[in-house]
């Protein structure tokens, strides 16, 4: 009898605690969910020959963490991402399994647009190119980073050439040619985002690209409106609002990052959000990756 009472008490206790317990665990800080990975030098011998599995686990961990951030962003909740920890984890994954394409794909997706850590990303991509010798995407990313972010078309050229040779894809040849002509930056970026979006299976990443795509479509709409304005009136518009005032555009597109489109001194369309999430404080942009890929 006593045994039954004790057992019933344990059962009641379990039923009482399970919901708050599950909620508390689910609401752990995001940083705790990401955690930290031991260095690859430690993980390699401990992996027991399964270092590819551990590398993929590290990537998936970062992916889940980043996916949660994207979800929060869509709910208008802005959290400061642990970019440094994310980058270190991805570097660890790359050292454990240098062939893993998810590492390079995700690094390209997350660390260029948001943080403009182009040098670090490019170093990682160069490291990956030594192993993934058949993969046209790594030189493609390197070419894009140099052309779009660095505006260094001479540095971009050999990468695009390599990507075109490896892929035999007319898109690469087309993109290379258009980059070299240094025109249509927003259109290039839009094509790049569409390229990335088509090549992922992760819904959260697709959603992330969708946000950026909408921002770029908005910029492109304003840019085309400005060109139409110049054709019609012979002078470029002074402000984006002129396009609506003169009936060129019905309305000014909305920047999903919360910024406003404007025309810079050269007449190029930009946004006050810089197409980055407002959670990224300026001082944080310098504080990422430290470790070098050798």
């Amino acid at each position: 009898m006593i045994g039954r009472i004790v057992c019933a008490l344990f059962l009641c206790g379990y039923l009482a605690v399970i919901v708050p317990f599950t909620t508390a665990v689910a609401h752990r800080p995001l940083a705790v969910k990401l955690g930290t990975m031991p260095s690859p030098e430690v993980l390699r011998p401990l992996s027991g020959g399964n270092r590819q599995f551990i590398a993929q686990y590290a990537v998936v961990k970062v992916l889940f963490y980043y996916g949660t951030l994207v979800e929060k962003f869509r709910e208008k909740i802005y959290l400061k991402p642990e970019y440094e920890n994310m980058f270190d984890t991805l570097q660890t994954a790359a050292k454990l399994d240098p062939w893993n394409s998810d590492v390079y794909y995700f690094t390209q997706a997350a660390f260029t647009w948001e943080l403009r850590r182009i040098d670090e990303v490019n170093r990682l991509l160069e490291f990956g190119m030594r192993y993934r010798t058949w993969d046209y995407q790594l030189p493609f990313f390197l070419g894009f980073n140099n052309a779009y972010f660095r505006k260094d078309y001479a540095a971009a050229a050999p990468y695009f050439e390599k990507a075109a040779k490896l892929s035999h894809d007319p898109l690469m040849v087309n993109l290379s040619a258009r980059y070299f002509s240094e025109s249509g930056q927003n259109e290039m970026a839009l094509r790049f985002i569409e390229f990335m979006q088509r090549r992922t299976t992760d819904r959260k990443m697709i959603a992330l690209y969708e946000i950026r795509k909408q921002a770029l479509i908005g910029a492109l709409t304003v840019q085309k409106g400005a060109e139409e304005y110049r054709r019609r009136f012979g002078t470029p518009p002074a402000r984006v609002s002129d396009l609506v005032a003169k009936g060129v555009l019905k309305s000014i597109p909305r920047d999903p990052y919360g910024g406003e489109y404007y025309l810079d001194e050269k007449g190029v369309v930009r946004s006050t959000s810089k197409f980055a999430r407002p959670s990224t404080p300026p001082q944080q942009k310098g504080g990422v990756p430290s470790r070098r890929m050798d």
Partner: protein
Amino acid sequence: MSTFENFFRLSITSLLRDRLLYLLLSLAFLVLLLIPLFSMFSLRQVQELSVTLSLSALSLLLLVVAVLTGASSLWRDVEKRYTASVLGLPVSRGALVVGKFLAIATLLAAIAALFGLGSVLAIKVAAASYPADIPVRWDVFAAAVCFEYLKNVMLLSLAFLFSAVSTSFYFPFLASFAIYLAGSASQDVFEMLSGSYGQALLPSSRALIKGIYYLLPNFSAFDLKTQAIYALPLSPGTLVLTCIYFVCYTGLALSVAVWSFSRRELA
């Protein structure tokens, strides 16, 4: 039927009666079903992840079966006094050890073959959901499964060696597992010693570590996962050398196990 064949058949029957084996095989079947689902966690290398998961799961399954059965089979026979009654007959202890070893090796081969075939299906399902940049090299995949099997047979011979000299189950179990970890890491340590880090060490320390390296089994040579996952070419010369290394090391470990067990006091 020879004494050796009898031991082999009896050991196989005994292994197939083990409920733990069925539990492990059920778990392995569940893993195979989940591989296509888990592969979707990858951003864009779904097929590669399915190969990774298949080979890692097979590696773990073979490791558990090899260590558990290898560490317990001789010990269990001694504990149950089976050896006391059987070895009273005019049969050699060597036949008992080798018969049991080959029975477990056969079981491992059957598990590797079954899991390998199941993996082919799981990989095909995963690959169908997302087109991969590179096709699966099934010949390399088969080689990776075979070498994973050889690696675990080599570990099994060491588990037998420890079991032959031990009076408890724990020593061969833990020692085999430790050897597995050390043998998987030994090549990395050896290569590190050959670099600048090794130059900073005392020559005597370097010599000691190298001695341990040659004593330990080198499991990294049997690891063809990277080649199978990313369809990289194999080096036939290295594979042949690895096979010769396997035969020599396993034969040596098994010979010492037979020698030790033959001289052991079982009364």
